């Protein structure tokens, strides 16, 4: 079996938002919509303060509550773990948004126009994505890139053309993507060699997003 997961090393991440911007580029999301973003956490009390940068997005959960609640089957879980949305089937009921504890989904009805609805830049003309208006949207693990890669003998997470844009772009090499079921994969090795956690582990929905926080001694 294959299961694609995302691994974020928060010991490396510097919160630069390069992944945020790269995702917006590649997926041409509307202003304000960020399928991938990096949060700025601060803990402790002066002067004992820690600050961490946490990349977030869809966790492509094993027991995805969004897929369960979706009334139209627009949200589907693929065998390889990627949770997809069929924009043409979705009715935009936003139930999946309420079901997601990672705040990964959005429903917006604004044009892909960065400078306001009346101005369309040349590159925006090509990516209107009308199919996404008023329906659910979220990180897709760049499933188009993954599928392109698989169809052409490339390895998702290793070959850039088969890898999510955020992983490609990360300048700290903090993001990794790969098949957790393959014990020789990059992600499997990272999980062996680092301490890690998954967010909201207590909700027990099988998140596919792992956070490394220190190399194992």
């Amino acid at each position, binding site marked *: 079996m294959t299961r694609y997961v995302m691994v974020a090393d928060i010991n490396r991440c510097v919160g630069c938002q390069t992944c945020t911007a790269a995702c917006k580029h590649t997926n041409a999301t509307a202003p304000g919509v960020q399928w991938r973003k990096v949060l700025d956490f601060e803990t402790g009390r002066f002067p004992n*303060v820690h600050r961490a940068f946490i990349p977030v997005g869809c966790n492509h959960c094993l027991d995805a509550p969004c897929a369960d609640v979706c009334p139209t089957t627009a949200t589907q879980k693929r065998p390889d773990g990627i949770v997809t949305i069929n924009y043409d089937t979705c009715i935009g009921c936003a139930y999946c948004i309420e079901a997601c504890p990672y705040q990964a989904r959005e429903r917006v009805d604004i044009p892909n126009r960065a400078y306001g609805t009346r101005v369309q830049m040349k*590159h925006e003309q090509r990516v209107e994505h009308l199919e996404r208006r008023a329906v659910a949207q979220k990180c897709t693990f760049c499933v188009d890139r993954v599928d392109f890669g698989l169809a052409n003998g490339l390895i998702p997470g290793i070959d850039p053309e088969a890898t999510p844009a955020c992983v490609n772009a990360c300048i700290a*090499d903090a993001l990794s993507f790969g098949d957790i079921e393959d014990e020789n994969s990059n992600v499997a090795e990272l999980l062996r060699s680092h301490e890690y956690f998954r967010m909201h582990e207590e909700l027990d929905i099988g998140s596919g997003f792992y956070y490394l926080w220190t*190399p194992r001694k």
Partner: protein
Amino acid sequence: MTHEAHRPPEKKKVHTYCYQCVAGPDLLDVQVEDDTATQIQPNFEAADVSPVGGKVCVKAYGLIQKMYNPHRILSPMKRTNPTKGRDENPDFIPISWDEALDTIAEKIKEIKASGGVDDSGYPRIAASFGGGGTSTYYMGTFPAFLKAIAPIDFGFGSGQGVKCYHSEHLYGEYWHRAFIVAPDTPNCDYILSFGMNIEASGGVCGVKRHADARDRGIKRVQIEPHLSQTGATSAEWVPIRPKTDPAFMFALLNVLLHEQRENLDLPFLKSRTGSPYLVAPNGFFLRDPKTDKPLVYDLKTGQAVPFDTVDTDLALEGHFVVSGSERGADQDRWEHQDIKVTTAFEHLLEHIKPYTPLWASRVCDIDNKIIRRIALEFLQHARIGETTVIDGRTLPLRPVAVVLGKTVNNGWGGYQCCWARTLLACLVGGLEVPGGTLGTTVRLNRPASDRNLSVHPSADGFMDYPLNPTDEEHWLARPDVRNANRTLVPLVANSPWSQALGPTHLAWMQQVKGPDNWPQATPPDLWFVYRTNPAISFWDTNHVVKTMATFPFTVCFAYTADETNHMADILLPDCTDLEGLQLIRLGGTKFIEQFWDVQGFALRQPVAEPQGDSRDFTWITTELAKRSGLLESYNEALNHGAVGISLKSDIYDHSLDITKEHTVEAIWEAVCQSASAEMSAGKEHQGLDYYRKNGYRFIPFERIKWYLTPTMEDLGLRYEMPYQEQLTRVGTQLGRRLHSRGISWWDEQLEEYHALPDMMDFPGIWEQALERNFKINIDDYPFWLITSRSMQYAWGGNASIQIIHEVSKNIRTHGGLVMNTDRAHELGLEDGDRVEIRSPLSATRGIVVTRQGIRPDTVMLMGQFDHWATPFARDFAMPSMNSLVPMLLDLTDSSGSGADLARVSISKLRGEA
């Protein structure tokens, strides 16, 4: 996914570079579909030559929007409202390129005919460029034109000299060819970082190197008043009181020198520094009367001998009775017979003695245990005595480094910090060796491509340095540019960068009121502005705006409307980043942490049809040169290497016919061919086609060139540490020159020219300067206001890029005035409250962002905003400290720099939305 109905889009990938900030340049690809730029991507093909796998940072992802930004100025414009001011609408109207260029050319011709210099002796033409020199890599052949229309005053700064690493630039190059200093991160285990915000300002190279280092277990201690991105990613945060870093560092020196002396790298001190040099009674070196060489004491023979005597065992400490001569300033000379002298090192010990960790703890508001622990950790991690092999040569391995950030390495205290940092490195033998504290490049010495080649011996056994003369005969008594850099600051040398390193605020200040006994201040008759916005990015921005409005003729190469080109007479739209053609050098070692194993050239090329009627900068320049009647001198400057490489040398000749007007392609074809020829020792001459297709060409850059100490060893030279004898002499001479002309207003600055830097109450300097100049009580302004770098915005004119604004909001400290949570609550302030931020000079407004990661006595405003003309940015309502900071000579150090520091009061705005 787009669904093209008729045919698949014609897709291609175009190679280019990003050099929007000094942390670059970095390579990238632009995906283009049907002549539309659609995506920025890393250039993965370059992964094996680029130290960062061909990646670019977040800023580069704004380049598509930058190209298609609807607010771009896309045709030349001319001002029709003759009155200039913030509240005056310029009423720009579009004009043809012919009209624009001819208007400018007429002006240039008239200025050239008059000699180019006004009655005060200042150049009639001024030019301001921003981005720490990065604008050079976007302005095509304009540098060649600037040579043709020289003289030019480059000193109307937009932050150069006062907001940059100023003191580090000058002292760094002086002491170890380090225009900017970096750790040898890949080999380092322990870094002391005084406010250096590498995770925000270090670009791709900085971020990746330090992320890798974290995986290796590096310990970095971030010493800084607030918890920046770098503090966040450091092993320890030490929240130091602002501007007290000199005290901290002197205390570290104290521990090492007075508690750990026997554990220091004594061989390095003896053979690679001026520590053993004997100091004569008047403070200058004791010299051999015959050869004038500084003397050292040889314990083997029990005699004072010239420093370069071989086979000696030099004393670092001790008092000796010797004879010799002493050469002071100007003609001062003393002959000494049997006097008791000691070494520079002993003087250092004495000098540092009072500055204990306990003393520093009170100044810095940091527990003295922490200070001492850090000193010991630094020493322990230095692994003195260990070696490594680089390119077949055995070198010391000293995996510890000290880096400084802005507001630490500039302004008062900058000298102290740079000196202390360099000395810390010397004490453990970690200067310019693997793992240690390294310089990155040179800009005042030459060549920039390899700083090792800039090392030449001085008579005293140190590195020679092109100090501006201060002797009576050669001192530039009458300043030739408005910031008087070579007159006032001997250390700025005389390279194309020197003007930007003078006190650039002087150029602005004296427009209102010049200092005594000084040439009458004059505005420039023609002012070129490109990639810079002094109306936002300098100090006392209200004053800068008013001053700009008095300039009679301003030509701005304009991207969008902004606060500076609001005062322009002509706007010229150049092809922006993804539209122009230019070949540049990259690789080798360069600021900030650009350490490559290759060196070469990369091309920036039009990825798609340029927007509107914007034109390539090279085309604009050639047109200007032609219309100004300067085509020949322009072409000559090109041939002589004005764009970074000579078009003719011993091994190749791609020089241009100076009598002809050459197209953009023809010029860059010649540059490309010259570049290839240089790299292949004349064997290959690939032109534009090659670079368009491949993006770059590199040759190896030996790893050993990262380090200067091998060169110093080969030449038998020493680092001029700790004792600044030459600077003492130079300072004394400068003082005499200034005083002889009745100039007393540089006296405070002259005080800095001491052989061993004095400790001062640096925060007190700010407090007293503000009280004195504004007749206020400093207690009414209880907060220190500092600023911090935004990776997303700085630089590149990104303020109007929507995607940049959107993603930057994820960073909490980008929101407004960052204030300590508990302190805010004490004042009755909550997160999100609107407040007035008032300094003795002016006031601005912002929103409170409460954080734990900042000292209670400090507040922080990130980046530089307060826009009022730039589209999109003017709606941010994000404040900046720049309008709050006065331009004061009192707050200028001897190197001509200041620091971004203010004192403010915060009060809640009532009844405001």
